């Protein structure tokens, strides 16, 4: 954790909660946003910073699916697999991505650019099938569109913005 990260948490999140431990989820989000995963050293540092045992921080971090305790690709392709998406042919998206990237679900491409996972309902069933690429949601996706979606991703994921967000602001 850099000093800037600590300062950010101290200023933005410490005043929000009556306990330091409650800052754990925001802190883990921040670490992951910065490094793209949560290395063991970060768990240790976050724990020290929040004055909890490293085991407690790890206990929490390992419970939540969104936190990656091992490295993942620059782009996390997350296809919904729950009921609406399944009956609206969402499996075809996964299949197409596997074929194109030559990986199975859960794997990362050799160039570390893409990791493919399936998630449960993304809360966008009205526009099934859907997928989330890092923080951006793609709705009513057809397998034919995948090529374009992937090719349009910039080299640096920090340059990958949601065009619907027209104001300044962050949730980290």
């Amino acid at each position, binding site marked *: 954790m850099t000093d800037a990260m600590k300062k950010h948490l101290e200023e933005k999140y410490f005043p929000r909660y009556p306990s330091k431990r409650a800052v*754990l989820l925001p802190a883990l989000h921040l670490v992951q946003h910065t490094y793209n995963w949560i290395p063991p050293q970060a768990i240790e540092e976050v724990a020290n910073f929040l004055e*909890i045992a490293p085991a407690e921080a790890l206990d929490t971090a390992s419970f*939540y*699916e*969104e936190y990656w305790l091992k490295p993942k690709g620059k782009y996390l392709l997350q296809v919904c697999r729950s*009921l609406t998406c*399944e009956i*609206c042919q969402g499996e075809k998206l996964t299949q197409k991505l596997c074929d194109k990237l030559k990986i199975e679900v859960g794997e990362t491409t050799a160039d570390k650019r893409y990791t493919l996972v399936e998630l449960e*309902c993304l809360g966008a*069933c009205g526009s099934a099938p859907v997928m989330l690429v890092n923080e951006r949601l793609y709705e009513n996706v057809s397998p034919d569109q995948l090529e374009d979606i992937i090719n349009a991703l910039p080299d640096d994921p920090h340059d990958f913005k949601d065009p619907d967000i027209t104001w300044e602001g962050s949730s980290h």
Partner: protein
Amino acid sequence: MAFTEPVLTKRIPLDPEKRKLVSYSDYVATGGYEQLKKALEMAPADIIKTVTDSGLRGRGGAGFSAGQKWSFIPKEKKTTHYLTVNADESEPGTFKDRYVINHDPHLLLEGIAICSLATQCDVAYIFIRGEYHYSAKVLEHAIKEAYDHGIFSSEKGILGSGKKLEVYVHRGAGAYICGEETGLLEALEGKRGWPRNKPPFPAIAGAFAKPTVINNVETLMNVPMIIEKGPAWFKTMGTPSSPGPKLFGMSGHVNKPGVYEDELGITLDYAINKLAGGMKGGAYKASICGGISMGVLGTNQLDVKLDFDDVRFRGGCLGLGTAGMIVMNEHTDMVRALRNCVRFYSHESCGQCTPCREGSHWMRKILDRIVDGEGKAGDLTMLMELEKTMGIMPGTTICGLADGTAWATRTFISKFYDEFARACPDDPVKRVPLTISTGRFNVLTPMGSNTR
């Protein structure tokens, strides 16, 4: 029943092309934050009475009276009170909260402020699921606008009244169980989202062991209009026991999937054919009734009324849940559909209670092999036996997730028995009569009573 025009979604045009994010100035220009001013003039007890009289029931799944829930918060304030807004929305088939947050976030903020006045809350956390990146940013932006315009103020309180309220967004991190209200509180406190044993109830010892209100996004969005137009007006919509407007999430095999606002008590037929543009790709076969945890409505149940009661007593489902309907046409394989649901529960079980953790895992294995054409004699019997052992209703689990597993399994198998039996040809079980809920339990809420 009389529902003439959208009230909850009055600022969100039906035409997707015309929809946009309602900004602070748009909101105020259309009467926004006027009800907050009105509520500031009211005593907390009067706000609670107005909301109780309106009959507003929780929109997060359990349908518990909102006013009554607020009345459990200690009247005499001795310590910090918290409001936690449940925007975890992860129940498959449910996408209504995301829709209203993405378009009209200030309506939620006004509801939060009024609820906080009524229950003397000092801090409100909007707990939003981690995957809702865009919505979290929308909310943070709206909160900033509200602070910039003095709706909230750390120094001067709500609209300069001195009544302090801080509003924050707290992001989850990908766990369905954090939608369960005490799992949510654990996640808020920086722990794994393990639901708590109750009592103590959150109204007495919730977030950080302080009195805590937990309400769904849509529930709170109903509050400003109740303050504006009163309980009698609110009750002109819906049915006597389920008054008011409701967001229906229509997805699956319909021509116009999306979120539709209508009143409680419309029929499933109306929801599919009038709201969602009719069936797509084949005739109607089944519909998930309000999120998969509520179970499924069968082919001959199009006349069931979508309110908190009819889906239970006539529909044979667990409840209306979130009113997220997943509509399936005649080509849908019910065995696969149930497998999908059970896979969800086995994946999302938090693992604390053996019947839920092991039960859903075994059920998933059984369904996997049935789907693969290897259904064994005894598999259906085993599924139905397992299903009866898990949940708050049989009293074997801490939270209602396992009841969802049970009701999905029970309703799918009982309503589409032939299809399951065909997939397990040697099974000796005879067709079972549909289990109808007695309505004695209110599973998803720890307050434990229903309001009929």
